[in-house]
């Protein structure tokens, strides 16, 4: 697509921000390597059309091009939530998994993609290559890191809780100040908080909410949405620096996202 074409699309989008022209425009910018501009256009489109799988697929490809694997993973997972048979998302997740050396997961996505597009010779060849890589004999002494994302949440029981948007428990546990189980009570509150945060962020034009941080008395708290239908709460005593707690929560959210995706 020429520069003139891109300018024309940009003008069209400026005249009508609700236009679907953001899709070809962001794709053209991506292909030209203008990833920052492509990301801005695609994000705006995905925000405007949160139910459009294609918008998130585009966002995921841009994220992947930017080397932002986790964010690309998140976007493609969202695509599959909206459209479980989206072949581009299966391919994209296969690629990300392969890049992360998770060959078995990559194979699963590729096989599903091939079911959806059995005539795709390139896809079949890719599947063969990944199968070969998965069956390759490991170097003696090399051990693949254990892929147990839940461990990241439960390494220290009582400090993290993952619930769905209805507040039902998915993983982890929390205890109150007296050491009594408080997971059920907190779960019920978290479902409501996620909806409230989403509404507040949308109506105040804060964009998609990413994190909620609470500084309490004896403890601090971080909330994340690992997927669009889950909420994660991580807490630590106030002695743990807020920035470190934020990083712990980010890591747990990534683990939770992968774990949930695996369950599905």
């Amino acid at each position, binding site marked *: 697509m020429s520069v003139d074409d891109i300018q024309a699309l940009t003008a069209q989008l400026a005249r009508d921000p609700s236009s679907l022209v953001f899709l070809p425009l962001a794709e053209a910018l991506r292909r030209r390597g203008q990833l920052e501009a492509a990301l801005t256009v695609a*994000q705006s489109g995905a925000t405007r059309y949160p139910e459009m799988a294609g918008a998130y697929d585009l966002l995921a490809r841009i994220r992947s091009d930017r080397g932002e694997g986790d964010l690309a993973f998140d976007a493609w997972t969202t695509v599959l939530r909206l459209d479980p048979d989206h072949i581009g998302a299966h391919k994209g997740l296969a690629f990300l998994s392969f890049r992360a050396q998770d060959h078995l997961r990559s194979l699963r996505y590729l096989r599903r993609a091939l079911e959806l597009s059995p005539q795709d010779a390139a896809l079949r060849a890719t599947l063969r290559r990944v199968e070969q890589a998965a069956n390759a004999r490991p170097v003696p002494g090399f051990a693949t890191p254990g892929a147990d994302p839940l461990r990241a949440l439960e390494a220290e029981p009582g400090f993290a809780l993952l619930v769905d948007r209805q507040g039902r428990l998915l993983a982890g546990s*929390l205890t*109150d*100040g*007296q050491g009594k189980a*408080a997971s059920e*009570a*907190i779960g*019920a*509150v*978290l479902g*409501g*908080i996620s909806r*409230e*945060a989403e*509404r*507040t*962020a949308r*109506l*105040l*034009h*804060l*964009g*998609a*909410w*990413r*994190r*909620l*941080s*609470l*500084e*309490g*008395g*004896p*403890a601090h*708290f971080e909330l994340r949405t690992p997927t669009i239908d889950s909420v994660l*709460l991580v*807490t630590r005593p106030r002695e743990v620096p807020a920035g470190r707690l934020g990083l712990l929560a980010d890591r747990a959210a990534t683990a939770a996202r992968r774990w949930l995706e695996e369950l599905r």
Partner: protein
Amino acid sequence: MNLAALLAELTPVHGVRGALIVSREDGLVVADALMEDVDGKAVAALTASLADRMAGVTRALGQPEPVVWQLEGSEGVLLAAPVAAGLLVVAVASPEVNVGELRLRVLRAAERAA
């Protein structure tokens, strides 16, 4: 207590789009210093509602209410700190704001408002 002076401590921070004192009980604006594009009534109502939810988290764990909380979105940040007498000190900012500095100023304003 001069509420306008309190808010004037927050608005000079680069990236701050507005600062408010909000009544928690009814979600109404008590005092504000806002840029034109910030809807103070919406900020007040939504922040008061969210503050109740936040208090619910710590209450369920048998802990005191948060002293400050922060909602971070892709395009902006909302900070709030409860004050005695049922008020909230609130700041709305764009993503480039120095959250550490704003947090300190919000906490300081909440202490002075108490």
